[in-house]
């Protein structure tokens, strides 16, 4: 084994972004669906350190945004009172990891001011909170769907490669059919399986199932190749000669090799599946309001007014690029390591 020198920055970035999003309830100042109708399309709130008298504050503070009378979506700061940013403040209830009831947030300000670090959307919902909670749906549907299709692919591909004969033929012919349809078209025709309007609760699971279903063919083909080449290797033949059982062979010799390939492929598939969820939601075929996802948060940008004046609504796009970059780098890292082995 090669010794691990430093932690790869890409892996660190992946771990960090997923960690923050996993604890979204803690890092987000508000709930994803708290509306402030009087703050529709408010730009990001500015953090201040110097007050009007020129005094420096160690604790950053904000001014309350107030709508200008008669001008929609135009705001100015109400400088009459400062609202210091507090840390570890009690706020709205949320469930940490979906299990523990909690109400502490990393930061927040006193009512009636709102701390909108990334602006707000049409309903005045905090974009940053929605970005974090939306990441939970987008990132984890990506990870889980990639997991589903990898497991499915490994099972079917492993079966095909190990059993050979007609099972191999059957599985590979079906895989070919799935591979012959371009990815987005396959995704869309599989999406047609679901009812047009899915309620937000069920959509997460259904979407993952669909995504996992359409993507099994590529990993299956890959794993089949690995298993086939494994079976012919001398140590496998030797083990078989010593009377090793099928289960033992798969567990001790074939699975470890296939698993390392699966790890590499995971770094390739996860961003693809994240993008699949984002794409579906963007076109109104995936996660629907009020649940946030990076896709349906980007959807308002199809409107020209929003696109022109609300640049802060692009924040999911920035998050997407960041995550993509991290996964690309991780894949390159793993692929290189595997190549040298």
């Amino acid at each position, binding site marked *: 084994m090669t010794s691990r020198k430093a932690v790869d920055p890409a892996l660190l970035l992946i771990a960090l972004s997923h960690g923050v999003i996993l604890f979204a309830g803690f890092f987000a100042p508000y709930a994803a669906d708290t509306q402030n109708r009087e703050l529709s399309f408010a730009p990001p709130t500015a953090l201040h350190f110097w007050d009007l008298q020129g005094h420096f504050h160690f604790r950053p503070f904000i001014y309350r945004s107030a709508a200008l009378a008669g001008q929609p979506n135009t705001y100015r700061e109400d400088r009459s009172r400062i609202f210091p940013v507090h840390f570890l403040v009690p706020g709205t209830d949320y469930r940490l990891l979906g299990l523990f009831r909690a109400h502490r947030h990393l930061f927040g300000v006193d009512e009636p001011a709102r701390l909108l670090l990334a602006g707000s959307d049409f309903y005045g919902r905090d974009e940053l909170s929605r970005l974090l909670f939306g990441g939970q749906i987008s990132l984890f549907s990506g990870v889980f769907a990639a997991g589903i299709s990898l497991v499915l692919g490994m099972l079917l591909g492993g079966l095909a490669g190990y059993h050979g004969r007609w099972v191999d033929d059957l599985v590979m012919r079906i895989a070919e059919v799935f591979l*012959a349809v371009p990815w*987005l*078209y396959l995704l869309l025709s599989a999406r*047609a399986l679901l*009812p*047009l309007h899915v309620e937000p609760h069920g959509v997460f699971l259904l979407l993952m199932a669909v995504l996992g279903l359409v993507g099994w063919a590529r990993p299956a083909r890959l794993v089949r190749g690995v298993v086939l080449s494994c079976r012919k290797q001398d140590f496998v033949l030797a083990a078989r000669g010593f009377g090793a059982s099928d289960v033992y062979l798969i567990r001790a010799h074939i699975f470890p090799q296939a698993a390392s390939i699966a790890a590499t492929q995971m770094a390739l598939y996860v961003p693809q599946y994240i*993008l699949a969820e984002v794409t579906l939601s963007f076109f109104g*075929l995936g996660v629907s309001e009020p649940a946030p996802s990076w896709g349906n948060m980007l959807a308002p940008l199809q409107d020209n007014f929003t*696109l022109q004046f609300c640049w802060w609504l692009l924040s999911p796009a920035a998050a997407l*690029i960041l995550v993509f970059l991290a996964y690309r780098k991780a894949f390159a890292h793993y692929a290189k390591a595997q190549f040298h082995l």
Partner: protein
Amino acid sequence: MGRFVRRLLHSLALLFGVSVVAFVLVDSAPGDFFDEMRLDPQISPSMVAALRKQYGMDRPLPAKYLAWVVSVARGEWGFSFAYNASASHILWPRLRNTLLLSGSATFLAWAIALPLGVLAGATRVRWIGSAVSLLTSCLIAIPELVLGILLLLFAVRTGYFPIGGMRSAALVNGHDSGVPWDVLRHLCLPGLCLIAGWLPLLVLHIRSAIQEILQAPFVNAARSYGIPRLRLLLVHVLPAAANPLISLFGLSLGMLISSSLLVEALFGWPGIGRLILESIQARDFFLVIDCTMLAAGGFILGNLTADLLLEVCDPRIRL
């Protein structure tokens, strides 16, 4: 030749398989076009049932499939409920638009990528290599959807380019003289988005193919004969590197119909990609299947073309 015929039959079987999968997927969807119709209070349930019977949508799946096959053979490609016309009337103009967009984009992408990839693969100047690497890794990291939104933002902010669609509203019913120029202006941004999608893939493959061949012994031999560098690159290295590039070319041919789905939907380009999105939302049964079949058919045809080209170009394959 026999090999090729076998490949052709295989492709046809594949198309058959795709059509079965598409039918099963789309048919098992809950609700159809007529269910959405029922929301209209002026249409009675018996009317919906009668319509469904009239269009043959109450029959079992195999019967529907057979009817579709017959209709494809007649060149009608099924019936669109939303447009109330045979699907071919809707499909062909859309297909032409898609091919116009993705054809020009793919052509330009190759025209840019080929010199860039060869340059990056053959150069000994370090900064050129790293500049190309930087460009490709930047383009790879930006998803097409995000790039499209950014380009739209650019169009909205500057007003240099039209924001969407294929023709300006003023020209749709007017005289024809300005149309080609108008379409070209509408083509720019979606085309750019598609080119940006293809470019990193093409450049990386071309570069690695060139680099691989440059390490072959025959290149050293040719160099020692004193063959000029450019001639060596274009006459000896490039043909030797053609093999993976032909497969890639087949892929890009095959993706002509399908690659532009996202871009079409974003920029409102009236092509096949936007059609399938609309058809899914309208539950327009046959159009969803037709679009999927066209995309898959194009893909299979592209692979077939690549196989044929390889067989022509590379004698090793024929063995």
